[in-house]
């Protein structure tokens, strides 16, 4: 992670340590201290400060980076909303982890999913290679759209797992992501003084928020476009169009929908089930915000049974993506959508559990079912 961040050439990095993010920022600090990287590295006294520091640096017109997880992300929440409103192209890695209480350092996706309404692009990687590639894409998207972007990688499952990955060098990356040139009138510059973060009364606020809403939605087109460009430069790309990836969905009677590293387990299980003649497929969500409504609805259109496999819950309703899925499919798809919650607080998600879900998806229970 630190290697790819270095090659993306941020000018200012600031962070506060939290498991399971620590080794990313430790290595970045080491690169700076040993002289192999020339960014400013600022030790912050909290995640709130780290987010505020990259906010200030980004507003001054340079590329920035920070990373956090869980409690740290929640502590940043106020700043995250603010960064999006200020239209600053900050990029953050969230190493997804459960949220206290009870305190738990292991993986689920409650942290990032909880702040889905902040105005950030949220991208989720299945493998470490995808996470590397998503970072390159995230900067490209953030800087072209003036929207902040969060790359999510499951804590421990990805952060503490060794996998061979291709880390493109700076020369290759420059072909896709040239040096950052900020928009002239949107930064703090003594030669062109501007006021940023001014207050908006009721006659102005709503239009500004509506514009942000429309721009986050419109980011879908840019993700598809940049994913295509990415392939031209790097010779590979994210699965599908960059918003979603379909796995054996074409003839599938049952489609499971999921996000992040659990997709690998689901794919393995599907391969086994297919050998037994069961027509199961997977729809992987890569872009959670903006949510790929059209792609999701199209992919699920022929399924008879749909199961959402969430690693987060909205207490009082159901799995968080289950609600998104139902909204997307409303009026378009007749197949029932069931909500399954797995892997909270680092509980291993096994192939047996996925098989169990494949069985339950045809059942009559419409309530959220915890499988673990």
């Amino acid at each position, binding site marked *: 992670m630190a290697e790819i961040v270095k090659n993306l050439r941020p*000018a*200012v990095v*600031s962070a506060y340590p939290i498991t399971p993010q620590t080794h990313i920022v430790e290595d970045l600090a080491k690169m700076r201290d040993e002289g192999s990287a020339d*960014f*400013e590295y*600022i*030790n*912050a*006294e*909290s995640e*709130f*400060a*780290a987010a*505020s*520091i*990259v*906010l*200030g*640096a*980004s*507003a*001054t*017109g*340079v590329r*920035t980076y920070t990373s956090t997880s869980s409690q740290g992300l929640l502590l940043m929440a*106020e*700043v995250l909303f*603010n960064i999006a409103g*200020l239209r600053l192209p900050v990029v953050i890695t969230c190493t997804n982890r459960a949220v206290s209480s009870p305190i738990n350092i292991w993986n689920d996706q409650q942290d990032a999913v909880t702040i889905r309404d902040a105005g950030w692009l949220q991208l989720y990687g299945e493998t470490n290679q995808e996470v590397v590639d998503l970072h390159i894409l995230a900067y490209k998207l953030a800087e072209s759209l003036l929207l902040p972007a969060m790359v999510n990688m499951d804590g421990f499952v990805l952060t503490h797992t060794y996998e061979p990955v291709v880390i493109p060098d700076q020369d290759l990356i420059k072909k896709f992501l040239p040096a950052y040139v900020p928009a002239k009138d949107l*930064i*703090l*510059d*003594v030669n*062109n*003084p*501007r*006021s*940023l*973060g*001014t*207050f*908006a*009364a009721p006659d*102005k606020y709503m239009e*500004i928020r509506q514009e942000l809403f429309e721009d986050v939605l419109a980011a879908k087109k840019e993700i598809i476009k940049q994913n295509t460009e990415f392939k031209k430069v790097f010779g590979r790309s994210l699965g599908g169009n960059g918003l979603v990836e379909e796995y054996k969905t074409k003839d599938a009677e049952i489609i499971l929908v999921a996000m992040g590293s659990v997709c690998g387990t689901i794919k393995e299980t599907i391969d086994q089930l297919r050998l037994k003649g069961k027509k199961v497929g997977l729809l992987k969500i890569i872009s959670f915000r903006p949510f790929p409504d059209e792609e999701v609805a199209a992919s699920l259109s022929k399924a008879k049974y749909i199961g959402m496999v969430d690693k987060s819950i909205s207490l009082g309703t159901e799995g968080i993506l289950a609600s998104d899925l139902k909204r997307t499919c409303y009026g378009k798809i007749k197949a029932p959508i069931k909500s399954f919650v797995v892997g909270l607080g680092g509980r291993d998600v096994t192939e047996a559990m996925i098989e169990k879900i494949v069985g339950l998806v045809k059942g009559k229970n419409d309530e959220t079912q915890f499988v673990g």
Partner: protein
Amino acid sequence: MKYKNPFEHLLNPGHTACPGCGQLIAARHVLDACGPNTIIANATGCLEVTTSKHPTSSWRVPWIHSLFENPSAVATGIEAALKAKGLDKKVNVLAQGGDGSTFDIGIGLISGMWERGDNILYVCYDTEVYSNTGYQSSGATPHDAFTRTAWPGKQSVGNIKFKKDMLAIALAHKVPYVAATTSGLIEDIKRKVKKALAIQGPKFIHILTPCVPGWGIEDNMAIELGKLAQKTGFFPVVEFLNGEMISNMKVPQAVPKVEEYLKHHIRFKHLFKDPRGKEQLQILQNICDENIKKYNLK
């Protein structure tokens, strides 16, 4: 002080602050002393909300408002970006907030900025109350003051807490330049800002800025009460370089009693009516006397 066309100041008129606001007077002179090569990170509060109603702005220097508690950390980010651009020697970074931001909600982030030794001038405009939300107690509110969260009544004679000593907190962080002044002392403000900017590292200037509605004072009294706060010893006007006191504005030979200062404020009115007030006035007088002794103000 020479008259200046209001539009020549870097903080322009057209803002919506109350007539006679002590904070706006101080802020205008702080910024003039900083000059146009300055970037400001501003906390939420009166200073922000009265000067930046979208799409207008009173600020003729680059200015950013993010949140209530983070102008210090935003300023750290600005400073880091200036370093990356090779502009850090040419541009001043000014972080500013009120007492609520400085003494209370933002103090952790200020501590971080000072610990890192960031080259930032932090100015606190201290109205001794949450002015912008309608006058609730802050960590800077003086003992016995009436606020909307400290009502004099059967169980209370006003704010039970004592004002936090921000100068001591700054000095404990080894902030190289630490100073206090008031909006009654314009030349002193300008001198201290210029002195601060010549020093590498963190700088803290604490300015007492009378709040017309929050204190319940006449709108022509911000300057006068800024002076009287100093003369009574209620607000010591001092200056520290590398931990050593290098200046202390002396009180007059005949030091005015604290009542001379307090009688102009509605927030202290109850002390003059309530039978319990006498004892409390003595406590406030003792605070002044201790300040005079501590900082050798006589």
